[in-house]
Each structure stands twice: as C-alpha cells, then as structure tokens.
C-alpha cells in the first residue's frame, strides 16, 4: 500500500490544544509521526529576562493553562533557592493542600478532555462540573478562578479564610461521593476498556530512554514521583502512596489518574489534620527593588503531568539572567509521543495523546 503524509491538527476534532502531528500512514496504520509544536510559542522565557523577579509570576502561570499552580510553585521554589529564603511550616502545608487541590482540578479537566474525545459526553460533563466546584474554593481562597498567583517566594499570599477548611472538606466529599458513578460509567465500563486497553503502550525501557515521568512512567510499574523522590513542601509530613499500574497503555495511565485523585483527596484530609498554626509567609525585600544573589539552581516538583522543573540563573540583577522550564509535556509530547504512535491507528491519535496528558502551551512556553 502507498504511504501518505497526513497532517493531524492543529484544527482537528481529535486534537486538544494547538498542536499538530505529521503522520506518515499506510492505510489506517501510522508508520512514522513527527510532532510540530510552536503554535503557542510566546517566548515567555525571554520575556521573563526583561521583567523583575516578581513581575514574572503572571507569565509563569500562563505556561500551563490547566494547572497554573504548579508553575507558580516551581518558580517560587527557584527564587527561594537562589535567595536563600526559608518558608514557614504552615505555609508548606497550605502549599501542599493548594497543589493537591490543583492536581484534582487538573485531573478532572484531563478527564473531561479524555471522556469527551472518546464520546463519553455524560462523564465529561460530570468532570467539568466537579472541577467547577473546586474552582469555587480557589476563588474563595485566592480571588481568581483559573490563574491564582497565590504562591509567593517566602510562602503564600494569605492564610485560609474563616471556615474555608470545612467548605473544602465538604467540596471534596461532594466530588469523592461520585467515584462509584465515575467507575460505573467510565473507568470500569467495558466500552472504555475495549477502546483504551493495549493502545499507545509505552514500555519501561522506552519511558526511561525518552525522559518519561508522571503517569507515563508510573503506568509501567515504576513508582517514580518527585513528591517521594525529592520531597518538597509538606509531602514528607503525611503518609500517602504512589499509585502504579503495570501495562503501560492508555488504560493504565487513566486508571492512575483516577487513583491519584482519590489519593490526593485523602492526602488533603491528612494535611488539614496535621497542619500547624503560625505565620504563612516570610518577609521578603521590596519586590520592586529586589536583587537576588548570583547563582544558579535546578529545582523540581511533581505537577499533575509529571516532573516539572526550572533551571534558573541570576547574575545578581533585578531580573533573572535565564529561566528555562522543564515541563513534563515536553518529552511526553515530542519524544515519547512520536515513538508511541508508531503502529497505531489514526483513530487512536487523540486517545494516546490525551492519555499522556500532553498540554501544548507547556511544550511551547
């Protein structure tokens, strides 16, 4: 059969976000795939070199629309590392709680995209609704629904408002109470299992060679999670487990997403119980005249997609000399995806891509 080049995206029903893949197909089979990012390249890293340390926050959170909170966290961690700032204990707990809320919200958004793409419209609507309940809590805590800029070098912007903890627990119970519904309609649904089982398999060897992290790695049975490997915030203060699966396919990756949401909710409950009283931020110099000592650092955290890191370099000035983000979608959407698509059918491209949780703005930055 003759080989054809097929341009998949950026305007395609099976494609989420502005991203395109050039597929070389023979009939319905993909022989080769070449990812084409760049539709969302805004040059944020260059723009950050022109702004002061604090003014960079609105830029970093726009690198990942779905989960801006991890981006705030990683940038704040980098600045704290360079400036030698210690974060108060209560702020570490609040950060962990906030990041786990963000993880659940991001997973629900991902579940919406995935269920929607596979035609499970009802499940998609549930996921969007439940994410919205969480956005109400974010709004109450930070004033913003999507972009929050709540994490700050030295801590967080403000303490929990009066009665927030109870309302958060109530919201999480409202979402958690629907897990049996989600299981029946989606995760244990034979139609879904047929569609996702054995599709887009990434072996452990490939994941290791291609820079896989997050669900891509944990779906191959390896419990690699930065929250355990290199603990930050308050993740080493409470007990929790890293969910893993063995098969490495789309089905395993989405099952991990489900297990992680449940684990995150339990973790939030444990963190709320263990949370100490005290200040929530460490005083920092006047942000408009803040000079950060010379030096460089690589810091990392676990976003809902995998390892998120930043290499940050200061030459002692009022703005960074270089900031370079290592986002999990970068290897997942470029090297891992190109490899995983080979031999699959055209109808599974979106299936595989969303199961890897690829978000285009994170690749382009």
């Amino acid at each position, binding site marked *: 059969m003759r080989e054809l080049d097929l341009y998949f995206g950026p305007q395609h029903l099976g494609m989420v976000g502005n991203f395109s893949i050039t597929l070389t197909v023979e009939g319905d089979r993909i022989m080769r795939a070449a990812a084409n*990012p*760049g539709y969302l*390249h805004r*040059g944020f*890293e*260059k*723009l950050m070199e*022109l702004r002061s340390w604090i003014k960079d926050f609105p830029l970093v959170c726009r690198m990942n629309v779905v989960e801006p909170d991890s981006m705030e966290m990683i940038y704040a961690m980098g600045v704290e590392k360079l400036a030698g700032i210690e974060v108060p204990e209560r702020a570490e707990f609040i950060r962990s709680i906030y990041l786990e809320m963000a993880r659940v919200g991001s997973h629900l958004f991902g579940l919406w995209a995935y269920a929607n793409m596979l035609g499970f419209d009802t499940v998609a609507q549930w996921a969007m609704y439940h994410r919205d309940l969480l956005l109400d809590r974010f709004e109450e805590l930070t004033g913003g629904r999507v972009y929050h800029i709540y994490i700050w070098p030295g801590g967080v912007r403000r303490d929990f408002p009066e009665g927030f903890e109870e309302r958060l627990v109530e919201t999480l119970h409202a979402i958690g109470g629907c897990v049996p519904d989600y299981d029946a309609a989606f995760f244990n649904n034979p139609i879904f299992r047929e569609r996702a089982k054995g599709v887009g398999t990434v072996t452990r060897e490939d994941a*290791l*060679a*291609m*820079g896989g992290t997050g669900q891509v*790695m944990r779906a191959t049975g*390896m*419990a*690699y*999670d930065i929250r*355990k*490997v*290199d603990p930050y915030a308050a993740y080493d203060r409470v007990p929790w487990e*890293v969910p893993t699966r063995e098969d490495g396919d789309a089905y395993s990756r989405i099952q991990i997403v489900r297990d992680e949401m449940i684990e995150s909710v339990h973790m939030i409950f444990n963190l709320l119980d263990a949370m100490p009283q005290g200040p929530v931020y460490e005083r920092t110099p006047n942000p408009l005249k803040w000079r950060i000592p010379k030096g*460089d650092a*690589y810091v*990392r955290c676990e976003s809902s997609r995998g*390892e998120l*890191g930043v*290499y940050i*370099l200061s030459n002692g000035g009022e703005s960074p*000399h*270089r900031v*370079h983000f*290592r986002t999990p979608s*970068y*290897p997942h959407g*470029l*090297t891992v995806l190109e490899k995983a698509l080979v031999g699959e059918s055209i109808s599974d491209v979106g299936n595989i891509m969303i199961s890897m949780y690829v978000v285009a703005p994170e690749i*382009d930055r």
Partner: protein
Amino acid sequence: MSDSLRDRLEVVFKDISSEVDVDGRLTVHANPASVLSVLGFLKDDGYDYLVLVSCIDWIDEGALEVVYVLSRYLDPADTDGGRVPMLLKTRVPRESPVLASSIEIFPVAEPHEREIHELFGIRFYGHPRLTPLFLEREYEVPPFRKDFDTRQYVEEVFGNVPPVGEGTQAL
C-alpha cells in the same frame, strides 16, 4: 555519593573542573570536545536521566554555555543518595558555535538540541533533524540571544500594523 563520583571523574578526565555546593549538588565544567565522553561516563555511573539541556548567553564573555541537567530514575524505596540533580556545563564561542549532539547517549536530547539550535544558534553535529521546532521563520540573530531586542522587534513587526478601523476598509 557526589564526592566519590567527583574523584572518579577527575581520575578519568584531566581537562575538567568540578565543584560541590552546600546542598551536595555537583557541577562539572568540561571542554566541548569531551562533553560526550563525560555524558557517557555519567550515564554508566547511574545518571541515566537527562532532565534538561539548557543554554545561557554570556554576551560579555563572548560565549554560549550549554548546561546538561542529569538525574537518576529512583524508586522511592532507594535511599542511596544521589537525589540532587547534577549539572554538566560547557562553553562554546558565540561566533560559529558548534557542539556534538548527545542523541546517541540520551535520545531525549533530540528536541532540546533542536530548540537550542533555533533559539541560540548552536549547530549540533550529528543531529538528524535540526529543523525549526517553534518558530516559523529564520532570524538574523537567534531570538533568545541577549543582543536580540524583543521590544524593538515587536515594534518593527507589529508597530506598523494599523489599528483596527484605520486603513482597513469597512465591510
């Protein structure tokens, strides 16, 4: 862990220098010619995960610095140290910068090197597709270098676009 690795590195490679910071992070400075052998050595030594390849423009010193961030894939059960990622740095001249590609050792370097080629202008020897990754056209000065003025570029390119309503015919 880092100390003994540092000793081993300095025995094998004569032309490198290294330092360890307060957190135990190892930084190795190598010549462009020996980067590949150092990377191969580190991979065999357990740093099996190339996290990031970054580039910094030191315009005053006339050099571009390429930084390889290396880490280990650890299960949480492993407790033998080495949790802090390490850095390998090398410098190439800003004029006609060339460096050997590390794809053979770390396949994940492929998009990183494409990106650095496009944004900083370093040509990676042996890279199979140094085509643009993000940008749609070639620039005289690679846009992430310090002498590329973003503001001036924006004014030149977008400043001439007339505001909506002026110079456009009403439908």
